[in-house]
């Protein structure tokens, strides 16, 4: 049984179609990265899974429960880590955890709080108000709050958005530990590196549906080949180079002030200029080619 099964799911907000015939299966025990640009429908998908949005059409099943009818027991067995920090800032670290242990009907609240404090390395700060914690500590607390009931499935909604690199790395370590314990994870993100590092599989979402899916290495091999050549030059020359590479049958994408010639290993003589910087192809190349959006 898949932990999450979505079939032909549609969700409209007025004239906007946020989710447009979405099909998505998440097998048990994997970390699936839901990668897409802003507005791709990732957050709406997360809200559908937690019963905070009701689909206009389609079928949703989470841990064997039909949504939205059985949303409540489904939520009892899944953990959610939100995009925005919504901790109670005046309340102590341990009380923040204890409240959610009660909401999730945990029998031994004290033991659950202790386990989460250890996981977040916050045992010595348990009596401090959240307001007194550093940014990294707060995000670790937010993450373990969603694990207070040891869920089978964890939804991570843009878990590191807006965080500095150090805090992001701390959270990646925690998420890595969670993966190692066999917890099923669905993680929405628009950070390529995050998806590449943490996900067993990546589903690229665009305009409300999954447009491609696979292991990061397979997606790269399928869509971007092995190498990408980045060329930095004046805008006029970039236009010329792009036209010439495309005429040679290569795929080219914008890369900030440069252009990236994807699959450059297949280029014939002269198609890639000598001053190009050749690097290994990445998931970012795939993302931009598939969605037409700049990556972060």
């Amino acid at each position, binding site marked *: 049984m898949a932990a999450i099964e979505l079939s032909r799911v549609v969700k409209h907000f007025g004239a906007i179609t946020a989710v447009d015939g979405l099909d998505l299966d998440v097998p048990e025990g994997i970390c699936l990265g839901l990668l897409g640009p802003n507005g791709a429908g990732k957050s709406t998908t997360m809200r559908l899974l937690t*019963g905070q949005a009701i689909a206009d059409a389609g079928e949703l099943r989470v841990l064997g429960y039909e949504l939205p009818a059985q949303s409540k027991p489904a939520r009892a067995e899944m953990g959610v880590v939100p995009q925005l920090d919504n901790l109670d800032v*005046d309340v102590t670290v341990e009380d923040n955890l204890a409240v959610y242990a009660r909401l999730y009907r945990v029998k031994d609240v004290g033991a659950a709080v202790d386990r989460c404090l250890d996981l977040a390395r916050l045992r010595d700060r348990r009596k401090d108000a959240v307001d007194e914690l550093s940014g990294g500590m707060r995000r670790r607390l937010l993450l373990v709050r969603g694990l207070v009931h040891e869920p089978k499935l964890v939804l991570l909604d843009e878990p590191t958005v807006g965080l500095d690199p150090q805090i992001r790395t701390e959270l990646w370590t925690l998420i890595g530990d969670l993966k190692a314990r066999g917890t099923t994870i669905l993680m929405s993100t628009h950070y390529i590196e995050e998806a590449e590092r943490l996900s067993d599989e990546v589903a690229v979402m665009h305009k409300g549906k999954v447009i491609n899916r696979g292991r990061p290495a397979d997606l790269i091999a399928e869509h971007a080949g092995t190498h990408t050549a980045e060329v930095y030059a004046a805008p006029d020359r970039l236009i010329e180079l792009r036209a010439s590479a495309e005429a040679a049958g290569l795929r080219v994408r914008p890369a900030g002030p440069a252009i990236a010639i994807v699959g450059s290993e297949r280029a014939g003589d002269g198609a890639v200029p000598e001053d190009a910087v050749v690097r290994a192809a990445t998931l970012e190349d795939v993302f931009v080619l598939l969605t037409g959006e700049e990556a972060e």
Partner: protein
Amino acid sequence: MSAETQARPRTMRRLEPAAITGVMSREVANFRTYWKGTTFSSVLEPLVYLLAFGLGLGATLVDEVEGVPYIQFVGTGMVATAVIFSSAVPAMFGTFVKHRFQNTYEAILAAPVDVEELVTAEMVWIAGRSAVYGCVPLIVTFFWGLDPAPGMLLVPVFAFLTALGFAGFGVAMAATVAKIDQFNYVTALFVTPLFLVAGTFFPISGLPEGVQVVAQVNPLHQLVELVRGGAFGFEAVDIARFAFLLAFALLTWRVAVSRMSKRLID
């Protein structure tokens, strides 16, 4: 599943006590951090009114109303003032802030808690707090000669029920307004008129007939009459007053659940 966690059924009931007490435990945890300020203002404000009107007017213009010393008349009526200001107002602002600014409800609803349980817990918590604050003016009036009476033991029940209704009103308003400053309209159009036409400071029998009719559907007026019944003797009509407050609480509860569901579930 570890020993910490409970085996979970495939279906869960509506209005589960565990969900309601769980939400209330969050309120308690937060209240521990701000209870001094809230208690100070919730106790002091009605006392200021009590002393200003009861002693001020009582010493200069009015000796007695309906055979009761004026300060005791006001003191028993001030229970209603304490109740509305410690229920409707925190329900409006608290709910709005938790929903729009703190994203608290998004986190709670990701747990096995539904909107009905969330709203119920918020209302019960506010009403419980308000029932305590509502009794303060009555207790203070003892110092101005109000004799304790057995009927007064029911005052916390009356205060709780009324506060439940006004908490539901506040939650429904919070789910309705688009911006926080729109609470000014709610306060000016509903809260202040209800507070002034409750019979707290003067008997409503002295008001124009049309206003008297409106006052009869004012839950605060019914509370004032019930508190005075507890202090000076109940009448048969007080059963109808109690039933009215019960209906008011039920009505605002359902409206609050409906409004919040529309607001929280897309």
